[in-house]
Every structure is written in structure tokens, then in C-alpha cells.
């Protein structure tokens, strides 16, 4: 399949906040032109993992490697400098700014000299509109429109286009489709495929298995901060994945236990206290 070296790799990463262990021994790799889907229910440690990748948190132990070299990020800006871009659920975070202005926040193009260096609105708008149109969102044609007036899918697309324009190599998408309708979500999935085609490494975080299966090459299921399953496209069915995400094995154990009890107790179900799932770590 894809045997290019990994752009970003985690090796045995642990993360604790004080006495609470959030991530256990996470090892992952993302390659160029590949979408890694991180699946997991709420509270599985997805956000902590993203923040570790994006330089917000430092791992308690373990290594982060970029292009095979160990790296440590002092903060999110440093991770960005290395080409790791995170796009959050609501994409455009400045709803009352124009498309051109929000696209270039912090790196505004200017013209003129000295104290009269002025923000080059025309150029900013042109570049921003072109960047997002190149991703197939042709309905955005005026850089003066406010970001808050775009649809959810358009905002996500704008944010992804922005990350790519500014040289992202690894794109971390945090639940990009969670708040979207079916049609909007399919736009975003198209954009993800386009980013993949352009050779970006994409980490796609979601709890919607269908969306993951539509774009993913490689899947990792996170349960209680540990990787419970790691498999490639086509190796597991949708049902199996859903089951895994809900803590599938625990579920199966529980069912077996209940069945066993009923067999020995004339078909009566056990009281909840009798059944105890595997102790939580």
C-alpha cells in the first residue's frame, strides 16, 4: 500500500494531568496522502490527543517524531511552524470578520511603506477566494462577505483551505462534520479527499463511523485513552467499528455474563449489582 515514511509519528506517548492518566501508550503514524481516522466516544481522550499533536500539551512520556526526527513543541505556534494545522469544529472562529480579513489574521498582506503600510484588502480577498475555490467551493466569490454568514460546511472548507495555503503538511480536523447536515458534511468530506490528493497527511477525528469510512485509509479506535484497535481500510465492517467505539468488547463480555446467569437461574435476569463488567483501569 502506502510505504512512504510517516510525516508525523507518536511513539508510546503517555499523558497525565496530575494523578489522572489520560493517554496510555499511544503509538500512531500518519503518512503523506493518507487519512488517519481517530474514532472514539466522548471522553475517550481524543481532544487530549489532538492537543498533544498540535503542541498545546507536552506528552508526559514518549516521543513525537516528524519526518523521523524527534520533536518537542513549545506551543501551538511552533507546531504550526512545523506544518501541523488544526481546524476546529466551527472552522471560522471570527464570525464578524470578512473572508479576506479572517483568512490572513496575523499575516495580513500590506502595501505602501513605513507608517502608511496599509492592509491590502483587494489582494487578501483575491487570494482567499481563490484558495477556497480551488478546493471546489465555488459559491464563495466575494472576499468581503462575513465568515459568520457562510454555511457550516463552507466555513470548514475555508479553514482547511487556509491551513493548506499557509503550508500545512499535517491537517488535524477536529470533528469537522459533527455539527453539519448530510449535504454539508459531504462537502467537507470532498475537501478532505482533495487535501489527501494533494499529499497532505490528514488526522480526521470523528465519532461518525460513516464519515470516517468515506475518507479513511487507516483507523484507530480510542477507548479510555488507549488505542483499542488499529486497522486499515476494508479490514473491519461498520458494525464492528461501532461496536468497538462503544466499548464493544466490554459489551460482549457483559452479554455473555448475563446469558450465563440466566441459564443457571431459570431465565431470570440478574440484578444489576451481580453483573460487573471488567473493572475500569
Amino acid at each position, binding site marked *: 500500500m502506502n510505504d512512504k515514511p510517516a510525516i508525523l509519528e507518536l511513539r508510546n506517548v503517555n499523558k497525565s494531568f496530575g494523578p489522572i492518566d489520560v493517554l496510555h501508550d499511544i503509538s500512531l503514524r500518519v503518512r503523506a496522502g493518507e487519512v488517519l481516522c481517530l474514532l472514539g466516544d466522548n471522553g475517550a481522550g481524543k481532544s487530549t490527543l489532538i492537543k498533544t499533536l498540535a503542541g498545546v500539551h507536552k506528552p508526559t512520556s514518549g516521543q513525537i517524531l516528524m519526518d523521523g526526527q524527534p520533536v518537542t513543541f513549545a506551543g501551538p505556534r511552533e507546531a504550526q511552524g512545523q506544518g501541523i494545522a488544526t481546524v476546529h469544529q466551527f472552522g471560522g472562529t471570527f464570525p464578524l470578520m470578512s473572508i479576506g480579513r*479572517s483568512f490572513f489574521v496575523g499575516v495580513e498582506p500590506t502595501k505602501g511603506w513605513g507608517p502608511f503600510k496599509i492592509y491590502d484588502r483587494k489582494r487578501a480577498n483575491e487570494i482567499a477566494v481563490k484558495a477556497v475555490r480551488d478546493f471546489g467551493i465555488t459559491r464563495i466569490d466575494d472576499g468581503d462577505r462575513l465568515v459568520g*454568514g457562510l454555511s457550516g460546511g463552507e466555513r470548514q472548507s475555508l479553514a482547511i483551505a487556509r491551513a493548506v495555503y499557509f503550508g500545512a503538511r499535517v491537517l488535524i480536523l477536529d470533528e469537522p462534520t459533527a455539527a453539519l447536515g448530510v449535504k454539508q458534511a459531504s462537502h467537507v468530506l470532498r475537501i478532505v479527499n482533495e487535501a489527501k490528493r494533494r499529499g497532505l497527511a490528514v488526522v480526521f477525528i470523528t465519532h461518525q463511523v460513516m464519515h470516517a469510512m468515506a475518507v479513511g485509509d487507516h483507523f484507530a479506535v480510542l477507548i479510555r485513552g488507549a488505542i483499542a484497535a488499529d486497522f486499515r481500510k476494508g479490514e473491519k465492517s461498520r458494525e464492528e467499528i461501532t461496536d468497538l467505539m462503544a466499548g464493544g468488547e466490554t459489551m460482549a463480555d457483559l452479554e455473555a455474563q448475563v446469558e450465563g446467569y440466566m441459564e443457571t437461574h431459570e431465565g431470570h435476569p440478574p440484578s444489576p449489582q451481580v453483573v460487573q463488567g471488567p473493572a475500569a483501569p
Partner: protein
Amino acid sequence: MMDAIKSVLRRPEAGSILSLIGVVLFFILFGGANLGTLVGAASWVNFAANLGIVAIPVGLLMISGELDISIGALIPAGSMTTAILTGYYGLPIGVGIAGALAVGVAVGLVNGLLTIRTSVPSLIITLATLVAMQGVVLSASVLLTGTASVALTAPDWAKFLFGQLIGGSHQVIIIWWIAFAAIIGFVLHKTRYGNWLFAMGGDRVSARNAGIPTDRMTIALFVLSAVSATFVGICQAILFNSAQVSGGMNFIFNAIVSVVVGGVLLTGGFGSVVGIFVGTITFAIVSQGIYFTQIDRNWSNLIIGVMLLVAVLMNQSFRDLALYFRPRGKRSLPREPANP
């Protein structure tokens, strides 16, 4: 023509311009005011200039998501510092002015540093410095001079620059106000720093992640607003040849009303200097222009209250207009508002 009107309506200052027109029309139609007399009158322009120099930085802070109410104590602090240094100790007026501005810088730094270092809202922080500075000004004045009111005489050049009455009626601070508004308007809308301010007001964390020095910007804004307030105090002391420890508290609410009528979003991220400027004029005309009408002066606060509500409602609708604007209207409006 309709397009031109609509494009004006989408701007942040639309509500303030309509408020201004509405108030003037109201005064002319129902108050029997003469438009010529009203425009020619110095009282509201002087009032607007003093208020406007404070309202602009307060508006900038609001755009960036902060609030500064310590200005209420810094106006008397500025005038008292000038008067004590120059009038009481007989130092040159330059020292008095520099001292007053230094007080502004110091309080601005305290406000800014406390805001970025703690998670306490800046409203509370500046409320604390407001009250504290009132105490400091009163105590220092009584301790140093034995009174709460100090006289001073400024040399001609200082009078000319800060305390002149142009044509015998218009305070020279009007020119300072217009120049200040022009410079800040340029910075806010034409330079990258302006973009940083809007981004900070929209989402501070994302702005910081995008590389904007949000902490330094916040401190600079608080210093600017404190220094502007002491500057107004300096001008008043030089104009009236004396300074009192009281006064200035009205400026707090007046400035906030002017800024909000001017279309600045209270929660940050949206606004314009033209809006703040027009909002200040509107406010000044209601509170001072009422003397040129047959309406009893006591009604002016009612008008201000109603105007504030109407202006805010208008600003709300115009903001939605701006949000869902599509230039060539090919498609129905998307209705998935983020969190305007």
C-alpha cells in the same frame, strides 16, 4: 441607489448615523429647534470632543473584548496632577503635563497587566482601579495641598495648544478629537493592527494561535485609554485654570453609551471609529442640544435611554444584514448562524 443605501446599512456605523438623523429631526420637528443654531452651537461640540477622546479608546477596548471604566477617575487624576505640579509646586507646565500623562501610563499598565495575568473580567479590574484612583487622588490632594481644588496658570503656548477657545467659544480640544479619530480610524481600518483587534475581539485564543501578540495589544489599549483620559483632564485644567478632585464619573456611562450607539458590539469583534465618532455626536446633541429646543431639559435622559435601545436594535438588524449579505443574490440565504 438602493444598493448604495444597502451597502451603507451593512456598515457598523449605520445605526449611529440613523440615530443622529432621528434625534436632529425630532428636535427640529417636536422641539422647535433651529437647525442652523443647533449646528453653530459650541456647547455640544465641546461636550462631544471631551467625551469623544475618551470614547474612542473605550470603543477600541470593547472591539477587542475588554472594557475600561477607570477613565472616570483618570480625568480628575490628570487635571489634579497637572494643577498640583504646576499650580501648587510652581513647576513648569511641561512637567505637569508629563506627570499627568505618566499617571495615565501607570494606571493603564496596571489595568492591562492585571487583565492579562488574571482571569478577572476587565470590568471588575477597572472598577477596582476606578475606586482606588478616586481615593488616591483625593488623599494625595488633601495631603499635599490641604484642599480638594487647586488653581493653576498656564503659559500662553500651553493655553494655545490645550486650553484655547477658538472664536471665543469652541475649545481647541475639538481639533485634538478630530485628529485623534482620524489617526485611530486609519489604524483600525487600514492597517494590520486593526485586523488584529477585530480578531482578538472575535476569538482571543485563535488570535493568539495565529501569532497576534494579544497580551501586548491589550496592555497598549489600556494604556491608550488611560492616557487619553488624563489628556482630557489636562486640557480641562488648563482651560479652566483650576482642577477639582471630583467629576469625571459621568464620562463612564456617557462613553459606553456613545460607543454602543456607534455600533460597537458589546462582546467585541465588530465596530468602527466612524460609528464611535457619530455615536458621540449623537449623544452630545441629545444631552446639550436639548437646550436649543422647547423640550424640558429633564427629558434628555429619557431620550438617551430610548435612543440607546433603538440604536442597539438597529445595529443588531444591520449586523444580520451584513452577515447574510450575498453580492449577486444567486441563492437563498444560508441560515446557520455561528454565534454573532
